[in-house]
């Protein structure tokens, strides 16, 4: 049963600017959903709408089956963590953490006990008398977290809470947040623009663009089966190679012809079709960097790969990133092994890479939507 539901939620600013458009989503109790998208995609607006800090233009938000979109923020029983923590500068850590309980009229002693207990669990026990300006970035983050979890809200809303931390601390806090969620099992809506954060934290990911949902799925399915070109390009580091071209039938099979290369998609009678079943010819081929393999040139036959000149390579330790120019297109390939330093190609050297067609994706050039390969059954 859905716990937090969004039904056709829309938000328009100043009468014309559509920040969120017909957003419909159902989140289960205890689920951790990440909202991800580039800046300006409406993810923070959506979080503020959920929190009650902005009014909806259309639609409704339900919590445990009851509409909450008309309630003020304090009565929705949600807690929010802000990007820069929003710690009250004139209050100590203890006062900051206990603020919510005090606002709800809890007894001073009860508040103090709860604060001490939570602070101890977050490693803030010795810092209760300090002001936010006397804390490090990580301590501030924990204080904000403490304030959010102290009153056991029904939903956690997190607005890029890790973005102000350095890489190492961010990694650590990510693990801590995940553990905390496992412990508390509170429904969590986590906004981020960082795809790796979205992938590692979320049970499900909602990809937003221009206020519209692009895809809602598990991290792995999003990565392996992106619904459209935008999602395909957004996930992965480096992102998916998107090569424009068209399909043609030749030599008893279906071929993709790009700028200066040709690869076989399938043998026999096959077509690429969109969701409505229409055949599409103008397409974009998507290959993740790890979708390329390098074989000896004599082994790589025509139609199995692409040829390009090495522009640059980056030694990443566990793997090697090769940047190639293939005709007018730029391609990034990830090579896992077999690249002893002597074997690393020189800049400018020609290289032939084969594409694992099982890992290739096709999108309609016009709409950007995912296409499926259908092979005709021999009659």
């Amino acid at each position, binding site marked *: 049963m859905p716990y937090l539901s969004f039904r056709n939620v829309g938000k328009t600013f100043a009468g014309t600017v559509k920040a969120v458009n017909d957003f419909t989503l159902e989140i289960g109790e205890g689920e951790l959903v990440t909202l991800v998208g580039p800046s300006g995609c409406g993810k923070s607006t959506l979080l503020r709408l959920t929190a009650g*800090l902005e009014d909806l233009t259309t639609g409704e938000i339900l919590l445990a089956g009851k509409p909450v979109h008309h309630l003020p923020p304090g009565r929705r029983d949600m807690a929010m963590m*802000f990007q820069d923590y929003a710690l009250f*500068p004139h209050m100590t850590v203890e006062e900051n953490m206990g603020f919510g309980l005090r606002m709800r009229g809890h007894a001073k002693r009860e508040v103090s006990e709860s604060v001490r207990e939570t602070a101890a669990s977050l490693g803030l026990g010795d810092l209760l008398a300090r002001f936010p300006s006397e804390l490090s970035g990580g301590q501030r983050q924990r204080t904000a977290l403490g304030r959010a979890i102290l009153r056991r809200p029904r939903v956690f809303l997190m607005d890029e809470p890790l973005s102000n931390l350095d890489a190492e601390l961010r990694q650590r806090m990510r693990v801590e947040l995940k553990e905390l969620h496992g412990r508390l099992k509170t429904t969590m809506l986590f906004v981020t623009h960082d795809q790796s954060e979205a992938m590692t934290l979320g049970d499900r990911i909602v990809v937003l663009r221009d206020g519209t949902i692009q895809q809602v799925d598990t991290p792995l399915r999003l990565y392996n089966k992106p619904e459209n070109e935008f999602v395909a390009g957004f996930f992965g580091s480096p992102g998916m190679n998107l090569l424009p071209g068209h399909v043609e039938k030749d030599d008893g099979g279906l071929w993709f012809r790009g700028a200066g290369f040709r690869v076989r998609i399938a043998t026999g009678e096959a077509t690429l079709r969109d969701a409505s079943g229409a055949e599409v010819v103008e397409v974009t081929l998507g290959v993740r960097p790890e979708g390329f393999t390098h074989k000896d040139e004599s082994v790589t036959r025509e139609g199995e790969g692409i040829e390009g000149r090495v522009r640059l390579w980056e030694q990443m330790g566990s793997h090697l990133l090769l940047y190639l120019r293939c005709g007018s297109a730029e391609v990034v390939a990830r090579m896992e092994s077999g690249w002893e330093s002597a074997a690393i190609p020189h800049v400018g050297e020609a290289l032939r890479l084969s594409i694992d067609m099982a890992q290739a994706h096709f999108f309609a050039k016009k709409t950007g939507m995912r296409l499926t390969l259908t092979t005709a059954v021999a009659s």
Partner: protein
Amino acid sequence: MLPSLGFKTLSPDRRRLAQRIGISLMLSLPCAFFAFPFLWMLFSVSKTNLEIFTPLKFFPDAYSWDAFRALLGGEHIPFVRQYANSLFIASVQSVGAVAVSATAGFVFGRYEFPFRRTLLVLAVFTVLIPRQVLVLPLFLWMHRLHLLDTPFAVILPGVVTGLGILYFTMVFRRVPGHLLDAARMEGASEYRVFRFALPLVLPSLLTYGLIHFILAWHEHIIPLVMLNTETRLTVPLALSSLYGGDMRVPYAMLMVGSLVTVLPTALLYFFLRRHFQSSLADLTSR
């Protein structure tokens, strides 16, 4: 061999000292310019009328407390009572002005509502209307409210100020919105959010209160129109009543009055100067 004297050959420490002495000398000139009337006033409390009107006579022939005794003893006017009136009026008006302006400024600065801009412009527009134009309608209002010749006839017109509303609108606009949002998320009502925001703008509250106190303390025209009875007058009115061109009134007493009048504002500034400076720095640094 290099010359042993000369500014360029001084050690850095000595050069800094020389610079400081130079700057101090330069600043002491305007200081003396502003301090002179005050010091003249201070030394005139012991002068006779004749000494006061003798040109270039800075120090009195003899020092005495007679003028203090005459003024505070109520020989010519009930000065202590009038001083208390002024303190009451200026204090209540300042607190009232801060309360009203901060509340209105919070609403104008933090909420969107129809005609917000128009209303703000109207509020600010009142600053452009000279006091003299408003005196008569205010007098008529106070007459209708039966408040004439009471402290409230002076206090009420000063409580709502367009400048205060504009000032606090700017002040509250600078409060980071996410802090107020965080308070809302934690269950604070809009009134609690406002109260929560007050400590965040404390220097501005104190600064505006201090400025308003000084203005109210020196206000002349409104008390002149609204107050009649001698025991209800404020200090500026009381002192001006002594300037009658009557040479029988010792001018030294006026000097005492003026000295004592400066005291509250000077003391307030002394105690609040840190907040005052931080608020000004805050306004100029953004």
